[in-house]
């Protein structure tokens, strides 16, 4: 049950940084008007953020990861989320076992 003081400080710094990013969007939209093309740009945020997070895994990590990403994406066209994710995880495990 030990908590190191410097560790606690580090956790609190991370918390402050994260909370800041989470609430600042609320203040941002209060000061920026959201009409027409800006509104459209806001709608593009979800795919843009998600893509930025996964792109290095999908295209620049290894063949196993790239293939597994493709498998997951194709599965997602037809299958429920959990099944698609499971297929992706299983394919990456198998491909890595083959040394890809």
């Amino acid at each position, binding site marked *: 049950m030990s908590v190191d003081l*410097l*560790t*606690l*400080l*580090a*956790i*609190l*710094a*991370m918390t*402050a*940084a*994260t909370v*800041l*990013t*989470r*609430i*600042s*969007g*609320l203040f*941002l*939209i209060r000061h920026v008007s*959201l009409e*027409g*093309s*800006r*509104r*459209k*740009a*806001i709608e*593009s*945020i*979800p*795919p*843009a*953020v*998600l*893509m*930025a*997070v*996964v*792109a*290095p895994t999908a295209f*620049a990590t290894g063949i196993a*990861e790239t293939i*597994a990403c493709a498998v*997951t*994406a194709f599965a*997602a*066209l037809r299958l429920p*989320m*959990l099944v*698609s*994710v499971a297929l*992706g*995880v*299983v*394919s990456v*495990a198998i491909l*890595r*076992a083959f040394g890809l």
Partner: protein
Amino acid sequence: MTENTKLQDFLGGIRSIAPLIAAVIPIGLVFGAVAATKGLSPTETGLMSALVFAGGSQFVAMDIWTHPASWAGVGFAALLVNIRHVLMSASLATKMEGFSPRSRFASMLFLADEIWAMAEFRARVATLTPAWFAGLVAPFYLAWVISGVAGVTAGAFLGDPVVLGLDFAFPAVFIVLVMGFWKGPETGAVLLVSGAAAVATQHFVPGVWYIAAGAIAGLLTALVAGNREKQEVAS
């Protein structure tokens, strides 16, 4: 709104997040196991998961963890990894008309990627309500904190997550969600630019700048495309 519809909404939120809970538990276990190798106690690990509640930045923190801990180093890294939350909360806030200012603020404190993505998804077909959002948050938050503590306690018994492919669960969830946000060629352009910018940045710039770089590049693409469309209509 009556108590009954509130309960229905809350349960609806739980149903929506259920598959992601199945995906986040292994990630939480892995996080705990990694934290154990860095010398964090179960209390410290639980505290971090409960207060920070942002998987990506917690993994990055473990990556650069030192003894004694450097609050400036991990704090800045968390800011960098989580800067995408600024865009995410701005986007989601425009879909929270039914929330009081206070509950909007409270909801934003729990804006993890998965919760945000499910809420954005829901907002396309229905009006978001605080009760539904709480249904997303409560089980997901508990699953993240508990699985992290379980992971640090079980430690080395878990085996290598990379061999099992479990590290891939998180990107796989994101890929499924990306596919769901497809709205036509404009989305294709945004994805292409965002992905290319992220890969290029990750290749040339050390650290986690790639997330912010890709997200902003994608956003700019949408802005440019939107302006061009407006000019065509005007001329």
